[in-house]
């Protein structure tokens, strides 16, 4: 399905009381591509993520996912549609093991409820089977298979970030939103991360990442969108945006790590 749009926004706007965090943003993201959203702090990147993920309602404008309008759809329903996001501050479930974290990612792909679980009905057993199989699959994808039984928070930050991605992947998304996946990682971990993201793309999943780390972005992204103080100021290939004077202006004073 490459070539068609996976996600579109039309004059998307979000205002918190007085301040306008996002101002009439028009985007259209190609399916099966790695898109990066960059911009200085407070540009509205995370707000954009939260709107797509449905954390809070849009003030005006529309979001379309595979042509379907997304505005009114509650956050927890979007995962089932194939949109999933990770968090800047990893947000792992500390009260679970590594494996259980990923298993909880299978939630939208399984359906048994209180009754089935209370009495261990056949349906529950069947689904648990496939849940754990898939979970292990995705755990291996990010190379954490050997840590399945550890407490999630006992992992170093690098692996925690990978685990978060595995947990998101477990929902079988069409579109995965990565919020600063590279933050706090060392060079080696960043290389692993890039490989993983490419892998995910190879699986035909569209990737959107918000990232401060320019080398990482430029190495990965096939399409880059630049936000500044709630406005889209540029988009294009990595090479194009890097030359864009607006972008350079926006980043002046911003030390680019």
């Amino acid at each position, binding site marked *: 399905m490459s070539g068609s749009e996976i996600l579109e926004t039309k004059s998307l706007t979000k205002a918190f009381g007085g301040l306008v965090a996002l101002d009439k943003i028009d985007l259209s993201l190609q399916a099966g591509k790695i898109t990066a959203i960059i911009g200085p702090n407070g540009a509205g990147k995370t707000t954009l993520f939260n709107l797509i993920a449905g954390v809070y309602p849009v003030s005006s404008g529309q979001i379309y996912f595979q042509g379907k309008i997304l505005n009114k759809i509650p956050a927890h329903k979007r995962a089932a549609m194939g949109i999933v996001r990770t968090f800047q501050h990893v947000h792992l479930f500390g009260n679970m093991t590594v494996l259980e974290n990923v298993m909880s990612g299978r939630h939208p792909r399984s359906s048994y409820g209180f009754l089935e679980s209370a009495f261990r009905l056949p349906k529950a057993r069947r689904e648990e089977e496939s849940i754990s199989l898939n979970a292990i699959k995705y755990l291996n994808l990010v190379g954490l298979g050997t840590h399945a039984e550890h407490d999630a928070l006992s992992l170093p930050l690098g692996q925690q970030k990978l685990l978060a991605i595995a947990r*998101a992947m477990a929902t079988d998304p069409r579109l995965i939103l990565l919020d600063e996946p590279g933050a706090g990682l060392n060079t080696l971990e960043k290389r692993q991360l890039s490989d993983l993201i490419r892998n995910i793309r190879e699986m035909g999943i569209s990737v959107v990442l918000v990232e401060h780390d320019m080398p990482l972005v430029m190495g990965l992204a096939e399409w880059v969108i630049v936000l500044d103080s709630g406005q889209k100021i540029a988009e294009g290939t990595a090479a194009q945006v890097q030359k864009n004077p607006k972008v350079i202006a926006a980043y002046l004073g911003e030390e680019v790590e």
Partner: protein
Amino acid sequence: MLTKVKSKWNYLVIAALLVLLLLIPFEWFLGQYTHLAIFIGIYTIVTVGLCLLMGYTGQVSLGQAAFFGMGAYVSAILSKTYGVNPWLAMFIAAVMTGAFAYFIGYPIFRLKGNYLAMATLGLGLIMWILFRQLVQYTGGPDGMVGIPYLSIGGFVFDTSFKRYFLIWFFCLVILLISQNIVRSRTGRALRAIHGSEAAAESLGINVDQFKVKILALSAVYASLAGSLYVHHLRFVSPQSFDFLASVKLVVMAVIGGLASVWGAIFGSGTTHVLSEVLRKAGEWDIIIYGLILMLIMIFMPGGLFVKLKEIFERLRLRYRQRGVEP
């Protein structure tokens, strides 16, 4: 750890505990404490619900006694005043309480943290006031006496001995059900909510709905316990469901171990055995009770069950090393 690799050891311990449980009410064993054991069973049922709600889902309830009381009063009123069959009354009570919890759950869970604590506390107080003031139905502050016994066919549960087995049957079934729930997709969803609501939501977990559902479930547990309570004592009075009762329930849940279903037994057990042992101490009992409560939390903040598990594990490993695994 223990919950996973189920070694022979665990089975041995569980079997031993079950046998112990089975023997308690016999005269030649601990017969004279049957009544105490029954109370432990009843309060365990409420406490399990609280563990699911607080320990797993991370939602505070300072008003659980309200549901406990609803179950008790609905059962009492239906079976005594209107002559409804006690079992039916018990069922109606559970449904009513569950539904009530479900519907108040939606507004209440719009509140978070200490506002939630406040709201549940308020709910508890309001129910308590109603129990006291609706005299024509509830008998007011003095409560109701002469509530009928439960019975199956001709078999009447008219002695503590009989009721002991009935109540602990309920208790164990509920413990097992809860155990299954926490080890399932549902349980993971609940723990996810506790871990991070944002992340849970992003993984397609309907946070609000799970919250009200678990509140309703805990309410149903409390209601069942309440019904058993009145059909055991054949008496009900508002005082058993006041603010302090709600606090007592939280205490049980925490000292047992919030994040462990089986901890509920230890929580309920410890509190009741303590006050039984201390009763002989006259006016001094509450001083010592307070001290012990503090000490338990200071030395085993995770709760008794967690501590016991640690000790048990250590022993097992030691024996393993000695190579005497049976």
